[in-house]
């Protein structure tokens, strides 16, 4: 009986991230539009887009290989697994022993690798530009992300998200400058990884600046729907990680009562709302930078992560 309940809880979380991901993207778009004094599409527009794309016929390039057709499913599957592993409102789920930060980074990394391959597969110049830029960004963002993980692991003594969240919620943590630096580094990495504004503009198809959009330019129909859903899931994943690690006090522990679970779910929705609002504000306030300045931006994230790790060695453990 207990096992069934555990499976149900894990399944509920998997479905929850899938259902909420387009809503978060729709929320960010709506808020950005309102901030620019436009009315903007409805909150449900991403769902409608997905349904429309799923109904449409797939147009494939003549020289597309089997890889091109398989990759959307691979990208979607790896991103969904990664997003489902992050504790959203409850820790200690059935699969939480696999919810390791390094595993999540590896899953996202392989999704990106496949997507970059797909960009190269058809052999158009835009796909090539997109892939090369994406890989350049990733080669800087991933070390920065790993530095953040090292910092968390050194503080909490584990890379497993449930344990990290439990440790962060306890009073053991205290006041640490490293955590602040790690938070900033993580936010910068999240902005770069999700192709948000200072690094890449998710709403444009201007060939000089696009990165993510250039890679997926050749996709259509259900393939495009899956890739879009995967990038929406990725945004949700990063907001969830930040919420789970840095605002962990409202997570329900394993085997909590219904009331606590409902409260935790409500606060999770609140976290997504706040995250979306902050992202929309930030994106409205800053201008997109040149592609050549992205290494500087991510270099700062890497430096913050490195500094956070270094500062831990002169902290309480002296």
């Amino acid at each position, binding site marked *: 009986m207990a096992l069934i309940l555990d499976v149900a809880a894990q399944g509920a979380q998997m479905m929850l991230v899938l259902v909420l991901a387009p809503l978060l993207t729709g929320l960010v778009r709506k808020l950005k539009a309102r901030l620019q004094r436009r009315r903007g599409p409805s909150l449900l527009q991403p769902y409608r887009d997905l349904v429309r794309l799923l109904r449409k016929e797939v147009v494939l390039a003549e020289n597309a290989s089997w890889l091109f057709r398989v990759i959307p499913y691979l990208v979607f599957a790896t991103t969904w697994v990664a997003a489902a592993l992050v504790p959203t409102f409850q820790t200690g789920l059935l699969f939480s022993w696999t919810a390791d930060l390094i595993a999540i980074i590896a899953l996202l990394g392989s999704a990106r690798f496949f997507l970059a391959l797909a960009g190269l597969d058809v052999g158009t110049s835009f796909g090539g530009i997109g892939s090369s830029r994406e890989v350049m960004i990733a080669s800087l963002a991933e070390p920065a992300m790993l530095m953040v993980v090292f910092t968390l692991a050194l503080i909490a003594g584990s890379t497993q998200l449930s344990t990290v969240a439990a440790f962060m919620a306890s009073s053991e943590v*205290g*006041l*640490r*400058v*490293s955590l*602040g*630096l790690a938070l900033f580094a993580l936010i910068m990495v999240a902005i770069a990884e999700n192709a948000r504004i200072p690094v890449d503009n998710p709403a444009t198809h201007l060939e000089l600046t696009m990165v993510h959009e250039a890679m997926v330019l050749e996709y259509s129909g259900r393939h495009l729907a899956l890739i879009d859903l995967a990038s929406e899931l990725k945004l949700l994943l990063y907001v969830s990680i930040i919420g789970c690690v840095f605002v962990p006090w409202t997570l329900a522990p394993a085997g909590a009562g219904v009331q606590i679970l409902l409260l935790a779910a409500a606060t999770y929705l609140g976290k997504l709302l706040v995250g979306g609002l902050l992202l929309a504000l930030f994106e409205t306030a800053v201008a997109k930078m040149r592609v050549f300045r992205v*290494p*500087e931006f991510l*270099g*700062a994230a890497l*430096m913050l992560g*490195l*500094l956070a790790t*270094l*500062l831990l*060695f*002169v*902290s*309480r453990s*002296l």
Partner: protein
Amino acid sequence: MNRLVFDVAHMLAGGLLLVSFMQLYQDRLYALLNVFALHAVVLALSVAWQAYIQNAPHLYVTAAIALLFKGIVIPVVLHRMIIRLGIHREIEQVVGVAPTMLLGMGLVGLSMVVMLRVTAAADPLAREDLAFALSVVLLGLLMMVTRRNAVSQVVGFMSIENGLVLAATGAKGMPLVVEISVAFSILIAFIVIGIFLFRIRERFDTVDVQALDRFRGERR
């Protein structure tokens, strides 16, 4: 030892180090001066916290000096100076941002290795303060080496002094007289450097110190 006491001291000293890195990162003169003022404010907070936990009232005077002179007076004067020199929109760099940052990280690592090994017997609070202070000093030196504009070299020089003050407050028992005299000698040095800046500009029409190399015949 009380954990909160240590955590706050660590946070403020770490914040000072972070602001040092922001100084290295910032290549616009006007913004650089704002970051320098922030550096002094964080230093003042850090010193005031040390005064509180060491129960040493004279350190409050040091904090006030840092806040008043280095946080307000010197940045304001430098702001006016760069506007008078007409260089407040200038962007300058000798080495790129990325190598500078890497060098800076290396220096921080070095100072931690050295300081933690040398001060093994001391109180943890003093140890971390000394490690951070040495890194701030080294980053100030790095700043002086990597910049070619005389004004940002002055900022580097001032941030070295900030690091020294941090070290002095961490090690208990520095007399107030020494502190005040250090503060005043820095102020005098600042005035002298300011006069020099205008002299350099009068002679060479620029405050780029590479122009001086050319006149000494070291270049080309």
